[in-house]
């Protein structure tokens, strides 16, 4: 019986010690009163992440204003050589910092768009409690893709696929009442097929060399989702014949690339853009 009583007494003592050692927690931007113990007047010092103060107070209590405690973190109160800790935690989510990359992305690319959201309260403190963050990508066609992520230590992230239609996609991050929008420009991906045709150039009265030339021209160049490949994209035409190789780099203009090459029976014409190779023509020998 005596042992039992001693055990209970020890447990009670341990609980009491734990309770007294517990550090007081308050929310950032909220005023509070801290009991420092003792009595009489004393100078109290407050050291925090964004503050430092020195005040004459009447112990045992010291009042701290909302301004004193705007930054989250661990504060130290010193009175009569004794230090007391105070933990200030972030308030509810009020702001989002949203990093969305890249700003331009090819269409129909898996995991090509990524977003990271940092959650802050109204005092710019990281909100460390887990929060649900919704990432939404709205394509130019209106189609939406949504991912939900739970924040850890105030950070959440998501990876999205780009849509099939080129144009400005809206990338939105939402947490609580806050949302931030970023624009991701979806541009046509690599050409899907390049098809060219060739014809003899009209004789030019100013050309004194009397040589015949070929005009090679592509059909409208599109990616595999049907988006026009942007003007300015380089398309390379190559002609290989008895007299060697001729290469012309032409830019796509209004969806079509065009170039002039020397004409020679039996020459082999080819076209390519980036890693995509188009059809081949053997001039005077059928396609």
């Amino acid at each position: 019986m005596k042992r039992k009583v001693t055990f209970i007494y020890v447990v009670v003592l341990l609980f009491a010690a734990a309770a007294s050692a517990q550090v007081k927690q308050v929310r950032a931007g909220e005023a509070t009163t801290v009991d420092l113990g003792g009595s009489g007047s004393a100078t109290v010092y407050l050291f925090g992440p964004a503050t430092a103060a020195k005040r004459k107070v009447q112990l045992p209590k010291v009042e701290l204003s909302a301004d004193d405690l705007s930054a989250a973190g661990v504060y130290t109160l010193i009175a009569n050589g004794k230090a007391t800790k105070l933990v200030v935690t972030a308030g509810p989510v009020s702001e989002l910092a949203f990093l969305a990359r890249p700003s331009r992305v090819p269409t129909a690319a898996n995991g090509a768009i990524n977003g990271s959201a940092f959650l802050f309260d109204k005092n710019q403190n990281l909100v460390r409690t887990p929060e649900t963050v919704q990432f939404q990508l709205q394509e130019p066609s209106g189609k939406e893709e949504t991912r939900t992520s739970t924040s850890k230590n105030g950070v959440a992230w998501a990876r999205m696929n780009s849509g099939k239609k080129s144009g400005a996609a809206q990338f939105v991050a939402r947490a609580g009442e806050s949302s931030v929008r970023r624009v991701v420009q979806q541009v046509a991906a690599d050409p899907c097929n390049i098809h060219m045709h060739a014809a003899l150039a009209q004789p030019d009265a100013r050309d004194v060399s009397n040589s015949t030339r070929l005009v090679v021209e592509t059909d409208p160049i599109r990616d595999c989702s049907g988006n026009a490949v942007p003007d300015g994209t380089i398309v390379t035409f190559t002609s290989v014949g008895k007299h060697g190789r001729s290469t012309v780099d032409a830019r796509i203009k209004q969806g079509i690339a065009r170039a002039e090459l020397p004409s020679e029976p039996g020459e082999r014409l080819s076209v390519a853009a980036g890693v995509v190779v188009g059809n081949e023509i053997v001039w005077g020998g059928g396609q």
Partner: protein
Amino acid sequence: MRDDAKPSPIDFHLQQLARDRRVVRLLVIAAALVLAVVLSALPLWLWASPAPAAVKVETSSAQPREVEDSTAQAVRRDYAQAWAAMSHALDQNNGSMLDANFAGTAREKLGRALKAQAANGLHRRIVDHGHSVRVTFYSLDGSAMQVEDTAQQETEYFDGGTLLKSEQGTVRYLAVLTPAENSWKVRILETVPNF
């Protein structure tokens, strides 16, 4: 001939005196030069940042992107420099010391603390015994990194020249770093009770 004439003892003494004076003058000039060099170096020695504390960076928990070795090394170097700068700034109440290593919210909050310390005649000294940094988040595009830092530190709180309190132990920090032109800067730095 006059040249062959033997100098009298008086002449000899006068010559030696002149030689001694020249030596003394040279010694005085040399001493003045040494003193000038020492005095000019004194402020550098006095205000120089303390040597950065040891920082260990652990990257195996980084998500969603792995941290490259060169990035981990850069973070270790820059985070150590940031702590050295911050310790010095908090001791000297000099905000300009933070500019090279801090940005955004961290810079702004530390700036507020320094202003308040200066206004109240207070300062704090952090004696840094090292950091164990664990990278928990590294964005896919490499534009932000979050770390959990377990530091061994001694913090001394001063009112003017009077030591108010000295504490020693483990302090935990949560930090977000972002790359700048040629270094990583601390953008968020919060003391946390636990991870």
